[in-house]
């Protein structure tokens, strides 16, 4: 079996401090008064795991455990401070659904823009655009400005676009919990198709039932540190008893 993704002792840091949204004037003042403080905050520390072909990895952990940060490093948006990430395939990520869409553009324009962001080609989008409309059930809204869509519709579109390709590594961050019941079922079915297609998938979810149902491996993070990595069932049980106190 082929290793799709290897995360080797990865640490990721954030800069924190009240340096955001300040101007040059304020920056200078703070430097003069010696009040400019920037701290490094380790959001993820020493995490290692491996993803094989056909694997479905669930990442669990309480809020602030570093799940999203870890995914950002996997997709290459963030650079790990330590450790190494080895990717053996194209990555398609669905991070925080609404982001990256533009409210003033139409559904169609947004679909193409999003497709382009995910690295699809124009020909591919031309071919699959109809499928996207069908899958997301947004045909009658195609020429409407995106901001007129409900949140559920927006995430349906995002899912429809991202799931169309057969990315070798698919990343889903809290995605399956959107849409109404019928759509959730549809998207779960689509997901299973992708997984069966041989791709490796990473799923972040707060729904343990979902993780148990879909994933064969689980990574449990707590405050940036890796608690456990391995077979899904056992870790889910441990996590559940941890949550219960």
């Amino acid at each position: 079996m082929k290793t799709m993704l290897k995360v080797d002792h990865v640490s990721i840091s954030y800069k924190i401090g009240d340096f955001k949204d300040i101007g040059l004037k304020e920056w200078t003042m703070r430097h003069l008064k010696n009040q400019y403080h920037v701290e490094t905050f380790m959001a993820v520390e020493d995490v290692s795991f491996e993803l094989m072909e056909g694997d479905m990895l669930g990442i669990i952990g309480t809020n602030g455990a570093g799940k999203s940060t870890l995914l950002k490093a996997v997709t290459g948006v963030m650079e790990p401070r330590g450790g190494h990430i080895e990717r053996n395939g194209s990555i398609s990520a669905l991070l925080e659904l609404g982001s990256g869409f533009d409210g003033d553009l139409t559904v169609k324009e947004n679909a193409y823009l999003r497709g382009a962001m995910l690295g699809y080609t124009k020909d591919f989008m031309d071919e699959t655009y109809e499928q996207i409309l069908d899958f997301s059930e947004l045909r009658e809204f195609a020429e409407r400005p995106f901001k007129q869509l409900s949140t559920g519709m927006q995430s349906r579109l995002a899912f429809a676009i991202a799931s169309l390709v057969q990315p070798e590594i698919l990343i889903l961050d809290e995605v399956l919990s959107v849409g109404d019941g019928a759509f959730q079922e549809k998207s779960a079915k689509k997901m299973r198709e992708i997984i069966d297609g041989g791709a490796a998938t990473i799923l972040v979810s707060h729904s343990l039932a979902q993780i148990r149902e879909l994933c064969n491996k689980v990574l449990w993070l707590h405050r940036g540190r890796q608690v456990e990595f391995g077979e899904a069932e056992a870790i889910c049980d441990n996590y559940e008893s941890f949550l219960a106190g």
Partner: protein
Amino acid sequence: MMLQKLKQHQFLFSELVKRDFAKKYKRTILGMAWSILSPLMNLLIMWMVFSNFFGNNVNHYVVYLFAGQLVFSYFTDATNLGMNSLVGNAGIFTKVNVPKYLFLLSQNVSSLINFGLTLLIFFTFVAIDGIPFTWKFLLLVYPVGCLIVFNLGIGLILSALFVFFRDMQYLWGILTQLIMWMSAIFYTIDSYSYTVQCAFLLNPLYLFIRYFRKIVIDGTIPTLQFHLLATGYALAALGIGAYMYKKYNHEFLYYV
């Protein structure tokens, strides 16, 4: 290497250009007309105010004025819009791994098209004013090329700075005012001493404007040093901008 990357992201680039266009002109013909009209209005106002003072001493004063206005309005348009290209697209680059300079490039495309259209109107003015078109006009490709690169470079620098310092917009507003006054858009520098006249060339904008006027009004080809200086400014701006993007590539994320 960079070309290869550009090819890989060609589709994204064209979609970004479309988006910036749609947003800039709000899908109206009037929106597009307005962005060309506004420099023309400026031209009209300047002409009304200053032609009495300078019109008699300067040959083809309208063309003289227009050359300055043409270069300067492209510069302000490209840099002001370009400044927002990182902060405005934070929602994208904090989620998806794409080359960050794409946002600035696409923003510059609409400014460039604007400039192209204004340039056509400029040549119409030149023709109306009775200036003959010569082969030397082809040389204008050179300052235009330098100006494009220069504007891109300044755009890179400003957009990076704007991520860190949110008052850059106001500072840049003041600075462009200053550059405007120092670019001799509506006045001539003939009455200054030779040293001062040379000092004006330290202002890249003035250099580009001067190139246009030399070719179009004087019908002379600028010296080799002049050409080198133009390239120097363009490459310096681009170099600094590219260096900042490279150095802070993974830092921008913390500040947005």
